[in-house]
C-alpha cells in the first residue's frame, strides 16, 4: 500500500508544493483545483456584475463609460459560463464520480491533469485583455458577427484563442468522464443502479462532445474572417452574418443544458437524503435527462425568432422548445414527490435544494413565455430575457453547485461546515437574489433593452432595487468562502455517513475520503445495500 501513503511524504517548500499540484493525477486533487478555480472566477466575474449594477443604480453615465460597460457584460457572461459553472461541475464530477461508482480514480488521470491545467491559462489570456492597450472584448458573451469580426477590437483574437483552450479542456474532460463511467464502474454497479448525478454527467459529457467542437469551429471561422481573408460571416464576400448566429446557437442552446443537467443530478442526490426517502421515479429521472439533452439539439432557432426566419421554422422551433417543458416537468414533479410525506429536515444543502426546485421552476416558466413566438417579439433583447436566464443560472446552476459543496464538503474535508453561517448565507442569498432579479422581469416587460449602460427615467426605481439586491447578494457570497475556509481549518469532525439519510457508495467511505479510495472495489452486497435504496425494485 505504498502508493496510498506516498503523498504524505511531500517535502516542505514552495517547489515541492507547486509540483504536487501541477503533476497530480489524483481525481480528488484535480477536483479540488477545479472547484477553487471556479470559486476565484466567481468572485472575479461577480465583481464585474457589481460594476454593471453600480453603473445602472441610477440613470445617466455615472461610473464607467459605455465601452467599458460593454466589456464588463461580455467578460461577466463569458467567465460565469465557462469559468464558474462549467469548472465547478467538472470539479464535482472529479470528486464524486469515482467515489460514487466504486472506481479508484478517473479512467485517464494524466489527461485529467492536462484538462485542468489548460483552464487557468485560458482565463489568464481572456482577463489579460483588460490590461492590454485597446478595449477588451465588448460585444456581449454571444460575440455575434460582425461585431466580433469586422468591428471587434484586437483583443478579440485573445478571446478566440482562450475559447479554443476552454474547448479543448472541456472536450478532454468530457472524454475522461465518459470513459470513467463506461469502463470504471465497480462490478455490480449496473447502469440503472448509478446515482442520478453520475447519469446526469454521462449525458452532459456527450452534450459537451457534440457542441464544444462546433463552438471551436465558429471561433475558428471568426479568426479566419478577421485575418485570413475568408468571408464566412461577411456579406461582401458572399458570407452571411446570420450564419454566425446559427452556428453559435447550435452550440449555445445545448450549452445551457450543459450548465443545468449536472445541477439536476446534484439536486436528485440531496433531496432524497434530507427527505429520508428514495428518489421518486428514478428511471423517469434518467429518461427525462436523456430527453432534454436530445431535444436541446433541435431548438436553437428560438434564440433567433426576430432575425427573419420563415414562419414554418418559427412554428417548428416554438413547438420543439415547448416540448422540453414536458421532461422538465417530470423532473420537477418527481422532486416534489420525493419530498412529499418525507421526514424533512432543513440543513443548508436541503435549503438550497428546495430553493433550486422553486426558483428554477420560475425561470423555466419565463422561458416558456419567451418560447412563444409572438410574445418573444416583445421580449426579445429586453431585461425580461436577462431576468429569465439569471433565474435559471443563479438559483439554478449556482445554487446547485452550492448545494453540492455544502452536501459533500464534510466528506471531502472530514469536517462539518458551520450550520449557522450556512443558514445566514442561504437566507441572504435567496432573499437578495430575488430582490436583484425579480424586478428585471418588470423592467423587461416595460421595454428596457438589455446591454445598455443608461436607461430612460421610468426604469429608475426597479433598477435601483436590483442594484441594492445585487450588492447584498454579492457580499453574502463572502460568507460562503469564509465558511469553506473555516470548515477546512476548524470544522468539527464529521462521521463517515455525515447525513442521517445519506445513501450511496461515497458515504460508505470514511470522512475525509482517503486520498486513494476504492482501490479494492466495493462488494456487490455493499453496492446493492447503498444503491437499491435509491432505486428500489418495484413492489407488487
Amino acid at each position: 500500500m505504498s502508493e496510498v501513503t506516498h503523498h504524505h511524504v511531500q517535502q516542505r517548500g514552495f517547489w515541492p508544493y507547486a509540483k504536487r499540484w501541477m503533476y497530480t493525477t489524483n481525481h480528488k486533487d484535480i477536483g479540488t483545483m477545479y472547484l477553487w478555480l471556479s470559486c476565484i472566477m466567481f468572485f472575479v466575474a461577480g465583481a464585474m456584475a457589481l460594476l454593471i449594477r453600480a453603473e445602472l443604480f441610477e440613470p445617466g453615465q455615472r461610473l464607467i463609460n459605455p465601452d467599458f460597460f460593454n466589456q464588463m457584460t461580455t467578460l461577466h457572461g463569458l467567465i460565469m459560463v465557462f469559468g464558474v459553472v462549467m469548472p465547478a461541475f467538472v470539479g464535482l464530477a472529479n470528486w464524486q464520480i469515482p467515489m460514487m461508482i466504486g472506481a479508484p480514480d478517473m479512467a485517464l488521470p494524466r489527461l485529467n491533469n492536462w484538462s485542468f491545467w489548460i483552464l487557468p491559462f485560458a482565463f489568464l489570456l481572456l482577463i489579460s485583455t483588460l490590461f492590454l492597450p485597446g478595449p477588451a472584448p465588448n460585444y456581449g458573451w454571444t460575440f455575434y458577427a460582425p461585431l466580433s469580426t469586422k468591428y471587434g477590437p484586437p483583443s478579440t483574437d485573445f478571446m478566440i484563442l482562450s475559447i479554443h483552450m476552454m474547448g479543448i479542456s472541456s472536450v478532454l474532460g468530457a472524454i475522461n468522464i465518459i470513459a470513467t463511467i463506461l469502463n470504471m464502474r465497480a462490478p455490480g454497479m449496473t447502469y440503472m443502479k448509478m446515482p442520478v448525478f453520475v447519469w446526469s454527467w454521462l449525458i452532459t459529457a456527450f452534450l459537451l462532445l457534440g457542441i464544444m467542437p462546433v463552438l471551436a469551429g465558429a471561433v475558428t471561422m471568426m479568426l479566419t474572417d478577421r485575418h485570413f481573408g475568408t468571408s464566412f460571416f461577411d456579406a461582401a464576400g458572399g458570407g452571411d452574418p446570420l450564419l454566425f448566429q446559427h452556428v453559435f446557437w447550435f452550440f449555445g442552446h445545448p450549452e445551457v443544458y450543459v450548465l443545468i443537467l449536472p445541477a439536476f443530478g446534484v439536486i436528485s442526490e440531496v433531496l432524497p437524503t434530507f427527505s429520508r426517502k428514495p428518489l421518486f421515479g428514478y428511471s423517469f429521472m434518467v429518461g427525462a435527462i436523456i430527453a432534454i439533452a436530445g431535444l436541446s439539439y433541435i431548438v436553437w432557432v428560438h434564440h433567433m425568432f426576430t432575425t427573419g426566419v420563415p414562419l414554418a421554422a418559427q412554428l417548428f422551433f416554438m413547438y420543439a422548445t415547448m416540448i422540453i417543458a414536458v421532461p422538465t416537468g417530470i423532473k420537477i414533479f418527481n422532486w416534489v414527490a420525493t419530498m412529499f410525506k418525507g421526514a424533512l429536515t432543513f440543513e443548508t444543502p436541503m435549503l438550497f435544494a428546495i430553493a433550486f426546485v422553486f426558483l428554477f421552476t420560475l425561470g423555466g416558466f419565463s422561458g416558456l413565455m419567451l418560447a412563444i413566438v409572438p410574445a418573444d417579439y416583445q421580449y426579445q433583447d429586453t431585461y425580461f430575457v436577462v431576468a429569465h436566464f439569471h433565474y435559471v443560472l443563479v438559483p439554478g446552476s449556482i445554487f446547485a453547485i452550492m448545494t453540492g459543496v455544502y452536501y459533500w464538503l464534510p466528506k471531502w474535508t472530514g469536517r462539518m461546515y458551520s450550520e449557522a453561517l450556512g443558514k445566514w448565507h442561504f437566507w441572504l442569498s435567496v432573499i437578495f437574489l430575488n430582490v436583484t432579479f425579480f424586478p428585471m422581469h418588470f423592467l423587461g416587460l416595460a421595454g428596457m433593452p438589455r446591454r445598455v449602460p443608461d436607461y430612460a427615467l421610468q426604469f429608475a426605481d426597479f433598477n435601483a432595487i436590483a442594484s441594492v439586491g445585487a450588492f447584498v447578494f454579492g457580499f453574502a457570497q463572502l460568507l460562503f468562502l469564509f465558511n469553506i475556509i473555516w470548515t477546512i481549518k476548524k470544522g468539527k469532525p464529521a462521521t463517515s455517513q455525515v447525513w442521517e439519510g445519506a445513501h450511496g457508495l461515497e458515504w460508505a467511505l470514511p470522512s475525509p475520503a482517503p486520498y486513494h479510495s476504492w482501490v479494492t472495489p466495493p462488494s456487490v452486497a455493499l453496492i446493492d445495500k447503498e444503491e437499491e435504496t435509491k432505486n428500489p425494485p418495484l413492489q407488487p
Partner: protein
Amino acid sequence: MQLSRSSRSKRLAIKLLLVAVLMFGFGYALVPLYDVICENLGINGKTDSTASLAVATVDTTRKITVQFLATNNENLPWKFHPNQTTIEIHPGQNTRVTYYAKNESNKTMTVQAIPSVTPGLAAKYLKKTECFCFRQQTLASGEEMEMPLLFHLDRDLPKNIHTVTLSYTLFDVTGKQQEVPEERVGKIE
C-alpha cells in the same frame, strides 16, 4: 481475452476524440448546409448569384409592384441609388432597370453589391439575366456609371405576393478583389 481496463479506456478515448473531430467538421459543414437549405427553400431573401435565361411567355393576368432600394455599407463614400424606385410589371415580363453609382472618394475603389429580397420567400422567383451584382465594380475617383439590371419575375410567383422589394447594399472590397468564376460574370456595357 478481455482487454485491461486502461487500454479499453484509451481505445474509447480515441473513439470519442474522433467524435469531437467529426463535430468540428460538422461546424464547418453547417456553412454549405446553410447555403443549400436557404437556396432550396428560398428562405433567406438571397437571389441566385448566377444569370438565368430570359423568358418569352408573360402572365398578363396580374401586375406586381417591384421596389428598388440602395444602401451604402459603413459610410461608403459613393453615390448609389436606383434610377427608378418603383415599377409595375407582369410575371414573366423581361425588365431592364438601372442603378447609378459614383465614386466620390479621392481614390480608385472596388465595390461589391449584395442583393436581398423582401419578402424572403419571393427571392427564388426573382430571376436575373444580367446584374451588376454578379461581379465587383471598380471606379476611379470621381468616375460614375449606370449599372444595368435585367430581370423577370417567375410566373410561379405565389399569388399572395403583390409587392417585391429588391435591395442592394454596396460593400467596399478595395484591396480584396477576388477572381470571380466565369459563369458568375454578367455582361456589362
